[in-house]
């Protein structure tokens, strides 16, 4: 297993996440796409930390832990906003939330 194996897996996860964010019409599906993107970033950090830096240096893993913390906080706020939107509009389709549209 080389670094490039992990980079290719991470690139595929990233583009699938972008695909979900661009095409899905349900806010929770968009959240799932964002989680895929964050996972691919964390995988990259850990892979580079394993292969590029000396073995006793694990800074990349620490960054990935902070990435997980941020993902947890982001998911909580995202779902709170979705609940508020659902109460206001009765739907969580992003294109129906257009009050600010001119």
């Amino acid at each position: 297993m080389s670094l490039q194996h992990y980079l290719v897996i991470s690139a595929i996860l990233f583009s699938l996440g972008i695909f979900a964010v661009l095409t899905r019409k349900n806010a929770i599906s968009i959240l799932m796409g964002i989680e895929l993107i964050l996972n691919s970033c964390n995988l990259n950090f850990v892979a580079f930390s394993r292969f590029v830096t000396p073995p006793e240096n694990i800074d990349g893993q620490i960054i990935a832990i902070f990435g997980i913390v941020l993902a947890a906080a982001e998911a909580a706020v995202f779902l709170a906003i979705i609940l508020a939107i659902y109460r206001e509009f009765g739907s969580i389709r992003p294109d129906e939330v257009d009050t600010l549209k001119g």
Partner: protein
Amino acid sequence: MDFTLKTFIFYGFALLTIASALAVVTVRNIVHAAFALMVTLFGVAGLYVFLQADFLAATQVIVYVGGILVLILFGVMMTSGRLEMRIHIERGQLLLGGGISLALLMLLLTVIANTPKWENLTDDGTAFAPTTKRIGELILKEHFLLPFEVASVLLLVALIGAALISRKEVRE
């Protein structure tokens, strides 16, 4: 023999991760997509094990599968009626989004294949060393102490904000 088994398991995890991620973005039922996401997160945790990040793999399973995924399922149950379980997709947007993400994938793969610095960096077979002690030292004693405290404040802010946004408004 040992090496071939390891390679086999690695490709198994890689295939599992990619196939379930594909299911997350293509399946029409949102509950099925959530469970496919669970498989993806487990697959990434397995890849962390291959990268000798044992603490991170456990954290991934606990926080993502135990926390974020349950949160997502709660969100699905509280906002989707029986009609909205099926995800609506428009054909034009599907083509455009697919084109953009495919172009992005090609760009990333070209960069990965054409960077000589990243070639031939293989598993050097160093013995596995537990990382938990070192992570604890780095976070609580050495140069990651400040980011750690900032992250705890961020979590507190996000918690209070989420509770405030999602609670029902009480009118006097």
